[in-house]
C-alpha cells in the first residue's frame, strides 16, 4: 500500500478516490461509471487524448458550489476535491448541438450502412435522442468515390466524421505515417501519402485504422463490423 494520502474528487456530488491511472477526468469517470456515462467520438483509450469532438465535455468546479466551467473530459486532469458534473441541461444541449453539427455532414443512411447498429456515431446520436438536424441546405461532402483499390481495406469518406483516430492509430500504434488529414477547416479530409489511392499507398495493412474507426469510413474487408 502506498503511504500517500488518498485523494478524492466528486462525481455528481459523490466522492471517489483518484488513482494513478486516472490521467484524465474521462478515465476517472469511466472507471467508476462505465463506458457510457460520458459520450465520446474522437477518444480511443489506446491513443493519446486529442480533444477534437468535444462531446465528452463535463462541467467542473474547484470546490463545492464554486463557479463551474465546461471542459473536455478526455484531456483535462482530475484535481483533488474537484466537483465533476457529468450531466445537466447545458451539457446535454452542448452535446446535442455538436452531434447535430456532425449530422449536417453525414449521409444519414443508417439502414443500409454496413455498420448499422454497431456504429459509435449512431450510438451517441441515439443516446442523445437526435436523428436529424435543423440547418438549411448545408454543404456536404457527399458522393466521394469509395476507395476500393486496397486488397484488404476500404475507404468510404462519406461516412467520415474527421475524428482523426485512423491518422493517430497509424502514427501512434503502427508508427507508419501513411494516413493524414489534408486541407484545412471544413475542407479537411483523410488521405494517404501524397494523396495516393489506398491500394497504391505505403500502407502495411495492419488494420489499426479500421479497428479504431467509429463509423465505417475505413473498414477491413475480412473483419467486417457488420452485425446484420
Amino acid at each position, binding site marked *: 500500500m502506498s503511504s500517500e494520502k488518498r485523494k478524492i474528487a466528486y462525481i455528481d456530488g459523490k466522492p471517489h478516490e483518484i488513482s494513478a491511472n486516472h490521467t484524465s477526468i474521462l478515465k476517472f469517470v469511466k472507471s467508476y461509471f462505465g463506458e457510457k456515462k460520458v459520450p465520446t467520438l474522437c477518444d480511443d483509450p489506446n491513443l493519446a487524448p486529442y480533444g477534437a469532438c468535444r462531446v465528452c465535455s463535463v462541467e467542473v468546479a474547484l470546490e463545492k458550489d464554486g463557479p463551474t466551467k465546461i471542459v473536455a473530459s478526455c484531456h483535462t486532469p482530475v484535481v483533488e476535491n474537484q466537483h465533476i458534473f457529468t450531466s445537466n441541461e447545458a451539457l446535454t444541449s452542448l452535446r446535442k448541438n455538436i452531434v447535430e453539427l456532425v449530422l449536417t*455532414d453525414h449521409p444519414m443512411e443508417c439502414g443500409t450502412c454496413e455498420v448499422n447498429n454497431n456504429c459509435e456515431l449512431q450510438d451517441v446520436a441515439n443516446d442523445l435522442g437526435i436523428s436529424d438536424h435543423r440547418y438549411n441546405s448545408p454543404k456536404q461532402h457527399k458522393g466521394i468515390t469509395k476507395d476500393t483499390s486496397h486488397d484488404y481495406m476500404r475507404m468510404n469518406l462519406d461516412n467520415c466524421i474527421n475524428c482523426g483516430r485512423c491518422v493517430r492509430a497509424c502514427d501512434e500504434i503502427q508508427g507508419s*505515417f501513411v494516413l*493524414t488529414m489534408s486541407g484545412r477547416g*471544413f475542407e479537411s479530409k483523410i488521405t494517404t501519402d*501524397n494523396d495516393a489511392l489506398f491500394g497504391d499507398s505505403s500502407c502495411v495493412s495492419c488494420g489499426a485504422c479500421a479497428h479504431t474507426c467509429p463509423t465505417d469510413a475505413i473498414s477491413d474487408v475480412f473483419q467486417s463490423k457488420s452485425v446484420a
Partner: protein
Amino acid sequence: MSKNISNLSGRIGLKNNLFKQLSENLLSDNPKDIKDIAKQHNLGVSTLHGAESFYEFLRPSHREKKAFVCNGSACMCAGTQDQLKKTLKEKLGDDKVGEMFCLGHCYENKAFHYDGENYAGNDIEKIDQILNGEEIKQEKFFSKSYATTSFLMDEKLSSFDQFKDQLNNFLKTDKKEIIKSLLDSNLTGRGGAGFPTGMKWDFCSKAKGDKKYVICNADEGDSGAFSDRYLLEDQPLKVIFGMVICGMVIGSDEGVLYIRGEYPKSIEAINGCINELKKLNLLGENILGTDFSFDLGICIGQGAYICGEETALIASIEGRRAEVDVRPPFPVTEGLYKKPTVVNNVETLAAAAGILINGPEKFSSIGNKKSAGTKLVCLDSFFNNPGVYEIDMGTPMSKIFNEIGGGYTKPVKAFQIGGPLGGVIPLGEIDNLNLDFQEFTAKGFMLGHASVVSIPKDFPMVEYIHHLFEFSAEESCGKCFPGRLGSYRGKEMFDQAKSGTAKIPLKLLNELLVTMQKGCLCALCGAIPTPIMNILKYFGDEMKNDIVKDN
C-alpha cells in the same frame, strides 16, 4: 498531437526545420523531393503533404495569383477594396487577383500585396511603376508615445551599441533577479491570454530539458492591429533583446521568430538585425566572451491565422499540421520538439526589455495589478489621427479616441477592439470603458491586442457578422468539431441571408454560438461568438423580420 512527429522533426531541429523546407519547396508537386525529405526525417510522405495542404500560400490556387487585396475588417469597413480589386484585375487579369487577411495597413486602407511587397493608401495610383518593378516611396504609419514612461517606443535600444551595453549589463545580472523584476512589474502576456510573463519564464527556467527554446510569436493576424509590425520594423532590437534575455534566464541557446508572411518589411527588418548582431557577436556562440550562446532564426508564416495560437505555432514549425493541441502539457514543459519553451508575443518581449531597462516599479505604477504598464493601441483610418500609440493602462477610452485619435472622420456606430475575436462595442459604451483587460472582459468584450476597427454608421451589421463567420470558417484549423462545422454552418446562414434564399433562424443561431463558445478547443472558433453576440445584443434592431425568423 503527434509525439512521434515532434520528436522525429526535432532530430533535424530548428536550423533546417521541416516547416521551412515545406514552405520553400513545392513538395506535393515533386514526388521525388517529398520522398527524400520525408526519408531524411524518418517521416511519412503523408506527414509532409498533410502539413503543406494546410497553408493558404502553399496551395496552387494561391500561387497562380499575382496580387492579393487585403480583406481584413478595417479595409472592409473603409469600403475601399472593391474598386482596388477592380483596378488590379484590369491590370493583371481577372484570375490573377486573390485576397489576404489583413496586411496591417489599417490606418490607410486600400492595402494589397504584389510580388512580395505590401502597398496601401495612395500607392495604387503608382500601379504602373509597381508593375514595372520600380521602387516607390511609401508612407509610414504615425507612432507616438503618450505614456507616463515609455517602455516600447523610447530610443534606449535603437542602436547596436546600446544593445551591446545593455546586454553586457544584463548578462552579469542574476537570473532570479530578472525574473523577480518581471514579476514585480506585473507584466502580463500581450498576445491575448494575459498570463504573467515572469511566471512563464520562471516555470520554464525550472523545467528540466537538455534543450530549451524561445519563440517570439510574431504572427499578428488580428485585423486592425499593426502594433507588432511597428515593433518589428521600428523597434526590432527591443524584441530581440527580450528574446536573448529570456534565453539566458531559462537556459536556452536557440530561439525563433515566427513572423507572418503578410509582413515582408517586418521579416526584412528582423533579418537585417539578426545578421548584424551575429557579426557583432551579440548573437551566436559565447556572446561577448561569456559562456552564454544564443542563436536566432526566422520562420515565415504561410497564411494561417491559427498559427498565432501557441500550440498551433509550435506544430507549424515542427512541420506538423498547424492544428491546436490539447493542454496540458503546456509549452513551458513540453513545447517545440517536446522541449521546454517560452512562447511570447512580440509586444510582451519588447515590454520585458523596456521593463528591465527602465525598472519594474515604473511599469507597475501605471494602471493596476492585473492591467499594468503601457499598451500599444492601434487606431484605424476612421480616426483623424490614425496610428499606433503607447498608452498608460487605465486611460479612459474616450480620451484615446477623442483626444489622441482626434475624433472621427465619418460617423461611426461601433468599434471592434481586439481583432476578429474581440468584442464589438457600440459608440455609446466607449465613455464607460478604460484601457483595462479585466474591465473589457467584465462588460462582455475583450481588449486583446487593443487594435481598433471602426464600423461606420452605414455599414450593415449583418454584413459584419457574415465577415466574422467567413473569417472563422476560412481560418478554423478544422480539428475540433464545433469549430470546423460550426463556423461553416454559421457562414452558410449568413450567406443565405445575404442572397435572400433563407432567413436567419435566431434560436438555432443562438444555440450555435453557445455551442462554439462553450465547446471549442481554442479561442479562434470559441471566441468568434463574442463579437457576434455583442452585435445581436446591441444592434439586433438592424436585423428585421425580412432577414431573421425566430425558429
